[in-house]
Structure formats: structure tokens, C-alpha cells
């Protein structure tokens, strides 16, 4: 029996990341699984707190390694450690009962949770979300572009310029071109030049026989640089929400999911995207995000108040000639009937200034009957950039948003009147 010690060497350690390939493959698998479950994931509470580089934990399915294992009911043995145990004593909760647990299940012989949790940033998630939709760039307001200076960029070549912009490769090419153009005999020497010259060098032949062919001023080529000005436009998402007594926590949550996704989408399309929150019951106020989603109010509903407030904010701060405006209103559809006409007119005005104006009616099943519905009234609104959807449930959020956005997609040429 003998023994060998192989000492630690840091350089080996640096090279020894042998699992890198398999980790990459695993990440790819997670990404695929994420994509499959994306509709469920985006409705998760945790991701709705914005912050693009924030990492969220999302549960995904389909990354488990399945094998035949025993089910939950089978008895197990453990040692009690220090503590005494008695028959019938509850020693813990079964972690693996279908609940999303902490971390991946054990790879061994116990069935784990059917979920696998992974960390993603909101940005990654949003990329995944919109990756497959293949939405074209949104229609941007033509006359409303702001020119943003991005420094300079390269654009073609020219014959004069400053030294630092000299393009050696092109200069050489144009020299060769000129050389070829000057006569056929010289072409031969040039074409065979490289090889024969080397041969001559080796054999000690007279390489210097080749004629000198110097650069000429007209061979010189310079890179051309021009100022890079890109037209850009900004966008603002106006979130309008009914905060009257009938909007309960669940409805607000659905609204929030919807606003979140809309914001994320708009953000992928514009350099700067701002958010405005308008809460209304019988009166409208502009509020902060926190308050918008958390604070409940009571009382009746006058929808037009919210629209008027939004219009006012747009006039004040986001003039339609400079901003792409996306407005969305979430409500449970109940309105004082005296306000209906006024709301309709205000909605029409909003359609005029916005790229897209959406109306989401959040209903629970029980409320379908009897109650007045704004949606009915909005059916008469035939502006092309208006879209109304109904959201019943968490699962509806993503399809509804897709529906709204596809509206945008099918009418790419729409022009909004000023």
C-alpha cells in the first residue's frame, strides 16, 4: 500500500470548471421551461414589484428528473436526536405536498416538489415574454420625433481626410487596383508575386528585380464619419384605476398585473417610459404607485372623472406631439348611469391623443348579470386604437394583454388625428 499526495495548485483550480458546459445546458432547459409556463409566472405576485434588475424567484415546472419512487404515505424511520418523541406527535409539516417548496427537490429517492424554483431578473422574463410574439415596432408618431445626439458613426469612405481616419486595407486595395490597371506584364509579376518572391528569397535569386510601385496620393482612402442623430420618442403609460368600494383586493391585483405587463411591454419599445397613476372614484387624483395599488377607497364611481384627470395630465406634461401615450383603464364596469355619456365622450377624446387606449373590465363570475357594464357602452366607440377586454381570472391577464397588443399590430398604419 502506498500513498500519493497531489498538492493544490491554484492554476489547476482555475481551469477545473468542468461543469460549465452542463450548467449552461441546464440554464437553457430552465429557459425553455420558463417559456412554457410563462402565462402562469407573469401572474405571480412576486414579479409585479417593478425594478428591472431585480431578481425574482419563480416556480417552474418540467425540469425535474423523474424516476419511479415511492409515494408520500409510506412510513420512514428517523432518529429522534436529543428530544423524546411520542406516538401521534406531529414532528413537522410535509414539505413535499405539491406546494412550491424551497429549492429543487432532492435528486434521490424521495419525490420532490413538482416545482423547481429559479432566479430570473425581470428583464430576462420580459425578453422571454415578448420574444415569441414577434410584435413589430409600435407605430411611432411621425412628426413627434425628438432628435437625440449619439455622437458620430461611420458612413462610407472618402479620398481626403485626417490621418487617424486612414483605412490601410482599402488604401492598399486601391493601390493594387491601380497597379493592375497600368499594364498586363506587371499583373503577372504581382499575381505570382508573393510565392515567386519567397522562392527567389530562398534560392538567393534577385528579388529586387521586381519594380517598385509606390503609393500615390490618389490611393489613399479615409473613413468617413458623420454625426449620429437618431430620432427617438418617449412614451408614457397612463394607468387609470377605479378605486371605488366595489374594487376589492383581487380585482386590484388583476389590474396591477395588467398594468405591469403593459408597462414592461412599452418599456421594451421606447428609450424612456414614464408612468402616471390616476385613481378615481367619484373624483380623480394623481397618486404615487404605492398608493395606487394599496389604498382602498369607497364610494361610487364616476369614470369620466378619471379620464378628465388623465387628459389634464397629458395636456400639462405629456403633450401628444412629443409623447407616445398609452392609457389603460381598469374598472369593474359599474358607473353612475348619469355619467355614461360624459365618460364615453372623454374616452373618445383620450383615443384622439393616445397611441392606444385600453379598457379592462375586471369581473368576477357572479357579477356578470344585472349590473351595468361600461363595456356595453364602449362598444359604440369605434376608434381604431381603442380596445376593451374582460379579465375574470389570473390566467386571463396575459391573453388579454396579447389581445390588446395584437390590436396595435393589426393596424400598424393607423394615424391618430391631432
Amino acid at each position, binding site marked *: *500500500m*502506498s*500513498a*500519493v*499526495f*497531489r*498538492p*493544490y495548485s491554484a492554476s*489547476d*483550480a482555475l481551469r*477545473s*470548471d*468542468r*461543469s460549465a*458546459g*452542463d*450548467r*449552461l*445546458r*441546464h*440554464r*437553457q*432547459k430552465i429557459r425553455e421551461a420558463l417559456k412554457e409556463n410563462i402565462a402562469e409566472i407573469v401572474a405571480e405576485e412576486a414579479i409585479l414589484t417593478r425594478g428591472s434588475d431585480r431578481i425574482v424567484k419563480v416556480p417552474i415546472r418540467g425540469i425535474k*428528473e*423523474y*424516476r*419511479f*419512487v*415511492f*409515494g*408520500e*404515505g*409510506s*412510513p*420512514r*424511520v*428517523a*432518529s*429522534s*436526536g*436529543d*428530544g*423524546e*418523541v*411520542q*406516538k*401521534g*406527535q*406531529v*414532528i*413537522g*409539516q*410535509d414539505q413535499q*405536498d405539491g406546494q412550491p417548496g424551497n*429549492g*429543487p427537490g432532492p*435528486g434521490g*429517492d424521495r*419525490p420532490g416538489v*413538482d416545482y423547481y424554483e429559479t432566479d430570473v431578473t425581470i428583464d430576462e422574463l420580459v425578453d422571454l415574454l415578448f420574444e415569441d410574439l414577434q410584435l413589430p415596432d409600435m407605430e411611432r408618431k411621425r412628426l413627434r420625433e425628438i432628435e437625440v445626439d449619439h455622437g458620430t458613426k461611420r458612413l462610407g469612405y472618402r479620398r481626403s481626410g485626417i490621418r487617424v481616419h486612414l483605412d490601410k486595407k482599402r488604401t492598399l486595395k486601391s493601390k493594387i487596383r491601380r497597379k493592375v490597371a497600368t499594364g498586363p506584364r506587371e499583373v503577372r509579376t504581382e499575381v505570382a508575386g508573393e510565392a515567386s518572391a519567397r522562392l527567389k528569397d530562398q534560392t538567393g535569386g534577385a528579388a529586387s528585380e521586381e519594380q517598385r510601385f509606390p503609393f500615390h496620393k490618389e490611393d489613399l482612402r479615409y473613413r468617413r464619419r458623420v454625426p449620429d442623430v437618431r430620432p427617438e420618442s418617449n412614451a408614457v403609460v397612463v394607468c387609470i384605476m377605479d378605486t371605488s368600494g366595489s374594487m376589492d383586493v383581487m380585482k386590484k391585483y388583476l389590474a396591477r398585473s395588467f398594468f405591469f405587463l403593459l408597462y414592461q411591454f412599452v418599456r421594451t419599445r421606447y428609450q424612456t417610459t414614464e408612468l402616471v397613476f390616476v385613481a378615481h372614484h367619484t373624483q380623480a387624483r394623481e397618486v404615487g404607485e404605492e398608493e395606487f395599488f394599496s389604498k382602498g377607497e369607497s364610494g361610487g364611481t364616476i369614470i369620466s372623472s378619471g379620464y378628465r384627470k388623465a387628459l389634464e395630465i397629458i395636456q400639462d406634461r405629456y403633450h401628444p406631439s412629443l409623447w407616445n401615450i398609452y392609457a389603460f383603464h381598469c374598472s369593474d364596469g359599474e358607473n353612475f348611469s348619469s355619467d355614461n355619456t360624459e365618460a364615453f365622450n372623454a374616452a373618445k377624446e383620450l383615443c384622439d391623443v393616445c397611441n392606444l387606449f385600453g379598457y379592462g373590465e375586471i369581473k368576477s363570475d357572479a357579477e356578470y348579470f344585472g349590473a351595468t357594464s361600461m363595456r356595453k357602452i364602449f362598444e359604440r366607440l369605434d376608434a381604431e386604437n381603442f380596445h376593451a377586454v374582460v379579465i375574470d381570472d389570473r390566467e386571463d391577464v396575459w391573453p388579454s394583454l396579447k389581445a390588446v397588443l395584437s390590436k396595435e399590430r393589426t393596424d400598424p398604419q393607423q394615424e391618430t388625428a391631432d
Partner: protein
Amino acid sequence: MERMYETSDLEAWDEKIREKVEAFGLTCYDQEFEICDHTQMLGAMAYHGMPAHYPHWSYGKSFERQSTLYNHGAAGLPYEMVINASPSLAYLMSQNSLCLQILTIAHVYAHNDFFRNNVTFKYTKAGSVIPSFKARADRVRDYMEDPSIGINKVEPVLDAAHALSMQCSRNPAIRKLTQEEQRARALAAAQPPADEYRKIHKRPEYVEPDLSRVPLEPDEDILLFIRDHQPRLTDWERDLLTIVHEEAQYFIPQMETKIMNEGWATYWHREIMNSLDLPQDIYLEFLVRHNQVVQPIAGDINPYHVGLKVWDDIKRRYDNPTNEEIERDGKPEMTGHEMMFALRETDRDSSFLRRFLTEDLCGELGLFEFQSQEGSLVVTETVDEGDWKTIRETLLRSVGTGSLPVIKVEDADFEHSGTLLLSHVHDGRNLHPGYAEHSLAHVYRLWGRPVALKTQQDGEDVFWYYDDEGFRDAA
């Protein structure tokens, strides 16, 4: 106060340890130690310590999981890792203190001795473990790089094969009968039993055995069965199934002897450390570390703890039996160490615990049985109030490969439809239906024709079926 040390210090200590190892009568393969940092250790763990291993995403997953746990402080890393090979290969963490390194080296030699001498490891071909893992890795990489195959085809086959890798015969000492022997056995079984009074008895009717059935006897090696009986598999697919099967066969002995092996190594590192005449600071640290290792884990089985207790008890029973024990079992014919060395050759966890986990030990270890009831884990049996034998039986069923269900191939052409019929040998424990569904999908992927599984759920016979329309419960 941490002592600084160099590799030469370790070599000096190793020299002393090896003297002790030989004096105690442990017989080991040659030993190689590799000092590594935590990243290397994590990498080694992900690939079961193998210096070369074929790539698969599951190892990346395992690496990430381990390193996340480690980085969040939720789990430490083992002080060492040792693989069954000749020469044996062990990894030592470079961050270990000198005391830990000495302890670990002693621990590693005992594992090495166990690998070399225990009967379960006899079939693992220790001499060629590392080259054969390398050769398998190369083959898999070749298939992945082959433009006509590629990783996207290799991966699903490996996924499916991994799902079934443990559905194989667990004891290589039980020889698998050849086709001819199975035929002979079937024919012999069909013969009427010898009957002294056959002259006066009615002659029993001879029922011809069905020799066309494939397999003749239920076959546990599902991967090999599919490899040999699925004509549409390509050569590389067959090779992948072989590769995964061979690896599983290599690791099964380690599962089968977990408690014995860890107990054995813990017993001997303690003996060696105690005999080494250590400087006081190292000795005190050793006591602390040793106690951490054999700490019972509440709500689980710590193999170091249970294993050591049982070995200690064996030693005591053979060296200093109580009067009661002498009355019951007679005077021991061997010394404690003789008995221990004999057992480390012949036994595996299930037999070891069945023979030597006594009622007193169960009580001392505080073993209890528990079960999941409506989402809570409820204690169902304790040594004080219940039957300790029930607890032992439950433990025996869950050690080693007992924690995995036995599933056999019954028929390769069930109902003459090409359906592969599997049957689960139900021992009172139900299969996890969700997992079974996904696993059947893997079988289906390999078999290429419908597959069916016979099992029981809470006493009811169930029949699960998987074909191109997916999973179906056809009870």
C-alpha cells in the same frame, strides 16, 4: 489557533497513519490524495467524484444546487470524498485544518479498506474504474459531436435512461439465469411434482409451459431488456443504455452499504486518531469534529451515527458480553475485531442491521417511525410505546436500494400488441403516481410502443398505460 501546514506535513502524518492502518489489519488499495478547493470539490461532487464523466445537464443542475446551498451557508461541504477504485482516489479540502486533514486521511483509509474487502464491491472492477468512466465519457461525447446524432438526440435518451437506471438487479452476487437456464427451469417447473402414490392418484394433466413468452422470467434490468429487445434502437442508443446501466451498477454497492461503510470509517478514524499520540490542540479539535460528525440529525438517519453505534455494539458484544447475552447467544467464539472484519466482508446494510440492530440499540438511537398524514409528519411507532421490530423492518426496507421500488418486465408483447408490460412488486408502499407517469413516458420513449404498468394504490389494483396519446389510468 490554526496551525499552518504544508503538503510535506500531510505526508508525514500519512506515514504514521498508514503504520496504524496496517497494525490494525486494514488492507487497502493504494491511495491517492488530491488537495482541492471548494469549487473543485463541488465539481467533483457533481460528477460523483469521477475525474472523467460524460456530460449531462443534470450534473450542471446538481452543481448549481450544491453551490447555492454552500454559498448561502445552508450546507457545508464534505471534508473529503473518496471513490472506489484501485488505486483509490480521495479529495481533501484545502481549507481543512491540519486536524481535519489527519482525521480525514484516517477516515479515507477505512473506506478504502471497505471498498477493497466488502463482497458487494467485488463486481465493480476497481482496477479499471477511472479508465472505463473515461471511455464511457468519450463515447458519449463522440455521439454528441457526431453531426448525424448531436446533443439534441443524445440528451433525451440519457434523460430516459437516467430515469430507469436504478430499475436493475440490485445484487450482482445473484447470477442472472441465461435464456437456456430459464427455459430449463420453466420446463422443470411444469413437470408434476414427485408423488409416491402416483399409481393410485389420478395422473395430473401436463400443462406445457409457454416458452414463447419474452421474457421467460420477469426481468429487473429494464434498460438492458429494452436494449436487447427493442429492434428499432440504433447502435448508439443501445450503447447509451449500456453506459447508463453500467454506471448505475457501479454505484449500487455504495448505496447498499452506506451505513456500514460510514460507520466502519468513523470507527477506524476514531481508533487511529486515539492511537496516534496527537498534540493536545489537535486532539481536542479532533474530539469536537468527531462529535459533530456522529451527531444525530433530528428527523433523519445519520449514517455515521447509526453505523458507528452498531459497530461499537458489535465490538462490545463480542469482547464483553453481558451475562444475559451469554445466556441467550452463548459465549462469543470470536473477538470483537475478528467479528467486525468478518462482517465488513460479508454484509450489506440490510443484513447488517437485521442482525445487529437490537432493541437496546434502537432505544439508544432514539429511532422512531413516522408517516405523512394529511400534510403533517406524524410519529407512528416508537421504541418505548410500540414494537421496535416494526421500526427495524421499516428501516431495513428503506436502506440502500430498498428505498427504490422493484419493477420488472413481465411481457414484451402484452396482448400481442407490442406493449411492454411492467409490474411493480408491491410491498405495501405505493408508487408516487405523478412520478410514475413521467417515468412511464421515459419508458415509452425508449420502447417506442405502448407501455403498461401493473401496480397497487392503497390495496387497489391499478393499471397504468402510456402510449402516443399520453398517460391513461386503465384500471
